[in-house]
């Protein structure tokens, strides 16, 4: 794992810190322990994959880190700021400018064109319309959709929609990209392309990528992989250990 650029400042080194996070869902009398105490530090610029079988709590953890849901106990810090302390305006700011979200179901707004989807976060951030359009076109260019900017989502394939989502996630130059099963609804080849694109753009822009997935293709590009199981961290592997794991998977399949 390459050391983060500002490792000398311990305070700023970790863009995300998860401390003792648990989450209990109550369904009537039933209680589901989705997360049972997660501790995690994520360095700036890191490409981190959260791996685990379906139902292991990946999305729940993702929602906690993204400030989309609140932990039952424990804390999540973004840039050493406890996000439970934020008011509605600060949370919206965080979601708008600090974090870019990528979803399994793409979540491109169906009534807007590709370009309008990409410019929306910039409009929310208060950028003027012309500048937003310029930047939006540039971003679509970078994800390989320069000629598709006026297409509606219904006129785009799944892979193209996910490219729009990546451009949209990068709109306000976030520090973190959160992706929940970004390849979950894509075929193998398209999934591979999306992973490579995400890897390339995040490296160019030094964006921290946190991706929940059970797609082993993600292993190749990850700096670190957190394996979770039943709401607990099973083990954390970095690059060197990973190559062994990949080898093992490679021989198995």
């Amino acid at each position, binding site marked *: 794992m390459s050391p983060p650029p500002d490792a000398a400042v311990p*305070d700023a080194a970790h863009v995300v810190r998860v401390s003792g996070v648990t989450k209990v869902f109550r369904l009537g009398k039933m209680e589901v322990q989705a997360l049972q105490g997660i501790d995690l530090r994520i360095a700036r610029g890191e490409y981190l994959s959260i791996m685990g079988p379906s139902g292991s709590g990946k999305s729940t953890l993702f929602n906690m880190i993204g400030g989309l849901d609140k932990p039952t106990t424990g804390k999540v810090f973004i840039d050493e700021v406890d996000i439970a302390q934020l008011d509605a305006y600060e949370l919206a700011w965080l979601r708008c400018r600090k974090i870019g979200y990528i979803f399994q179901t793409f979540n491109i707004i169906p009534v807007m064109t590709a370009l309008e989807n990409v410019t929306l976060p910039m409009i929310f951030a208060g950028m003027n319309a012309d500048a937003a359009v310029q930047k939006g076109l540039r971003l679509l260019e970078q994800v390989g959709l320069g000629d598709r900017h006026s297409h509606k989502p219904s006129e785009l394939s799944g892979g193209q929609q996910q490219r729009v989502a990546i451009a949209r996630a990068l709109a306000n130059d976030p520090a973190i990209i959160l992706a929940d099963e970004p390849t979950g609804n894509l075929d193998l080849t398209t999934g591979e392309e999306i992973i490579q694109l995400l890897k390339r753009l995040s490296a160019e822009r030094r964006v921290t990528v946190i991706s929940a997935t059970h797609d082993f293709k993600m292993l190749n590009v990850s700096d670190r992989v957190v394996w979770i199981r039943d709401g607990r961290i099973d083990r954390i592997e970095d690059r060197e250990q990973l190559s062994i794991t990949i080898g093992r998977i490679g021989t198995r399949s």
Partner: protein
Amino acid sequence: MATQAWSALSGNRRRIGRQVVLPFGKSVEIAYRSLRVRFLRSLITTLSLVLAVSFFSYNAVGNDIADGLLASGRPEFRQRLIRAGYEIQADAPRIERGAKQRWVLILSLLVCTVGILNAQLMAVTERFREIGTMKCLGALDRFVLRLFLLEAAMMGLVGSVSGAAIGALLALAAGFLRFGVAAVTFLPLAAAALSLISAAGIGLALSLLGVLYPAWVAARMQPVEAMRVET
């Protein structure tokens, strides 16, 4: 309060800002586009309003026409008005606004409001993922609230104005058929204008009333809904 704590912690570098409120014009633009791309659905929601408002306006302008004829002082109109079913007290300068007519009107407006409420609730449910996604992109609750209110106001304005106009034209046509040109020539313009304005105003108000609860539901929605993968 919390913000100051971090500023202290991290020197003067403020790490979390506050989201800006979207300018009103921008919200109007987004609401307008949202309506336009959902043209058919918007049209159907608006149509129930057009019906109710035109019914209201038809009645109100019809009464104005009858008032005008009565005020003309010509006895043959009084006879024909009574034969046409208008209630007229002896020596009264205006025709009677019957309680029954009023109830039918109130009921039709009520039905219309419930219809709008229903249509808007469905629209919110349909757009749950879209709203959730917008919140993930930095939309404030008040933006979502404003978006739905603006959409309703635009539909309400178009529906009420056209409903009022349609109702008035129908009333004029009916008056013309029954009483000839006199229906138009004796029409008290100020009263008719007032009828039109109040029909349109009531329509707009009902349209907003019907969207209040759905808009509140939409604004309160948690962004985590955007993540749900339905199976």
